[in-house]
């Protein structure tokens, strides 16, 4: 929001019509607008959604505008820009906010148990062992782990730690065996009392402030880096502890990062103004400072440094910047653009694990079923 105000202040003749809304409603609206050929000039995109609109031909290739100097991307690391390139060779979106998953745990509750503190290069197998040790020392009504068997993003970390990934071009990047192992890992964790029961886990809200960790029911959880401050605020209100974060458990692999991004729609009738706005958002220092926290970390290196140095920046933002730069230096960053239809896979994955957990389905059967679903879905999209 602040960016638009700043832009209008800097360029009084420009009229920007923002269309703010919350995340899922945004995609419903954008879908309808795209189908009707009425997208706004600068639609907000995201690594998990952009492929759909690229495939529909709803977005404008930005390469010519960059070559003409209308959009300056020199301050963004090249591999971050290139990570957003579509399979057809064009660049349709430019990132304005990076985010990543973290493994979050409650340090004051873990410390007295004497169990070792999680580290950046752990894997999920290691976490289950860790949880089993913590289980011995914790109160009975505190579970060391939140149930993550249905979280496709966490399965992605697991697959990566085994040298696989979710997607490999237009094919599934994982094997059905790996997925079955994942399901079994969480079944075992639940049966050993390392996670809450299945019905209880199915009830948990996705919102950090309502999560089991916020309520003190679990010792740890995973979520986007930006949610940690919400979680901490709730814990503070109940004097429930302090959140610490480490890299999600994919071993020594690069950090998987997504982004919120901006694009220019193919039906835009004022491309120059749209390009100017995009350029402003990416490079203007005031705008960058305004943007802090709400849509992720700015990928523009100069702005990120400015935010880290700004005494007005909240400490949680500075923590995230430090964490991100640390991960980037040690492990590297992998911009993870998903193929179309992946939001469906997120839901399907959760549903299948719940069917395993409620003993409606065997882990192997669910794994095969999901593998086939991904393959079929990717085939459909590529036809």
């Amino acid at each position, binding site marked *: 929001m602040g960016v638009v105000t700043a832009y209008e202040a800097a360029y009084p003749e420009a009229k920007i019509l923002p269309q703010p809304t919350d995340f899922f409603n945004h995609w419903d609206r954008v879908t309808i607008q*795209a189908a009707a050929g009425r997208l706004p000039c600068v639609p907000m995109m995201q690594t998990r959604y952009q492929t759909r609109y690229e495939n529909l031909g709803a977005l404008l290739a930005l390469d010519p505008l960059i070559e003409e100097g209308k959009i300056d991307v020199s301050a963004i690391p090249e591999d971050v820009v290139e990570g957003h390139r579509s399979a057809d060779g064009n660049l349709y979106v430019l990132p304005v906010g990076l985010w990543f998953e973290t493994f979050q745990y409650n340090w004051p509750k873990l410390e007295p148990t004497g169990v070792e503190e999680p580290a950046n290069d752990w894997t999920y197998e290691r976490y289950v062992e860790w949880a089993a040790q913590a289980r011995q020392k914790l109160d009975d009504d505190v579970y060391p782990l939140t149930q993550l068997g249905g979280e496709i993003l966490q399965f992605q970390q697991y697959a990566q730690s085994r040298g696989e990934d979710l997607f490999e071009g237009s094919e599934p990047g994982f094997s059905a065996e790996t997925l079955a192992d994942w399901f079994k890992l969480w079944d075992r964790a639940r049966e050993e009392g390392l996670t809450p029961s299945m019905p*209880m886990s199915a009830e948990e809200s996705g919102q950090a402030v309502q999560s089991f960790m916020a309520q003190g029911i679990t010792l740890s959880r995973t979520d986007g880096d930006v949610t940690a401050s919400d979680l901490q605020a709730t814990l503070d209100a109940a004097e429930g502890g302090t959140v610490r974060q480490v890299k999600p458990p994919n071993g020594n692999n690069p950090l998987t990062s997504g982004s919120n991004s901006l694009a220019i729609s193919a039906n835009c009738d004022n491309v120059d103004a749209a390009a100017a706005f995009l350029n402003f958002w990416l490079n203007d220092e005031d705008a960058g400072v305004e943007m802090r926290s709400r849509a992720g970390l700015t990928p523009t290196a100069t702005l990120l440094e400015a935010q880290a140095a700004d005494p007005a920046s909240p400490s949680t933002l500075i923590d995230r910047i430090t964490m991100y730069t640390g991960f980037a230096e040690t492990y590297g960053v992998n911009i993870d653009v998903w193929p179309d239809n992946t939001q469906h896979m997120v839901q399907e994955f959760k549903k299948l694990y719940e069917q395993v957990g409620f003993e409606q389905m065997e882990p192997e059967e669910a794994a095969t079923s999901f593998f086939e679903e991904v393959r079929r879905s990717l085939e459909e999209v590529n036809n």
Partner: protein
Amino acid sequence: MPRPTTKMPSHARRIRLSSRARESIIGYLFLAPWIVGFVLITLGPILASLALSFTDFSGSFDRMRWVGFDNYIRMFTSDRAFWGSLKVTSQYVFISVPILLMFALAVAITLNRGLSMLGIYRTIFYLPSLIGTSVAIAVLWRYVFGEHGLVNHVLAVFGIEGFSYIGDPRTALGTIIVLNVWTFGAPMVIFLAGLRQIPSELYEAATIDGARNWQQFWHITLPSLSPLVFFNGVLSMIGGFQAFTQVYVVSDGTGGPAGSTLFYTLLLYQRAFTQLQLGYASAMAWVLLLMIAAITALFFLSARYWVHYGDEQ
């Protein structure tokens, strides 16, 4: 706007037209706003969705192809989620609608007895309908039916150990049914309005004849109210088949746990907007329309046996 036309003096044409023809013209004049709206606003999108149901439309008209009945065939032969959602939705409709209506009718009759504080009760009973679809409900429902929820606290007093009713696929649908019954305000208000329309002298006469309470209910209240019982029945049934917002809010849009609350319209929404299978979703919409229309037709066929209108005596 049709206001001027309806004011047209009807006696001006009395001389030339038969009374039947005149009534037809007046009928269409009264109906003019609806006809304009139907033709200009409603009909086009409805026909478009029918046409789209025979295509593989997925967001781009340029790449759209006709696929004949493929969407319909796929739905009935290879979409397991479709059958699952049909089962869930039917259970929901056939359990919650009768309970909802009986509850609404019972409360309306109780409230219509001239108790004091009537207005306050009526407002209180309508409150859930006002907030039944807000985000707050999703939060609250966990506080009531969750593992550590209100229900289990009450059960614990009696030494019964509960579980998470929202999180268990065997009971999750039940909590949505409770949520629906809980928002019985709308049919209750309609019943109350109908009860007010029953001429009091009917009851006076019956009382003089020595009719008992339940006899009065059976012979006066229910027949007089039957057009509205019919109305609420049909509309609650249609609303039940289209139920979306409540389950969307409570299950975070997933229809979980394990697909146990994946309602028909939620699946349709997922197919349309999550998967961008807009042609297929249109076909699902038309199958739903045909099912609802068939049940509605049965309602109308049965109406002549139990619905009593004031205009046919």
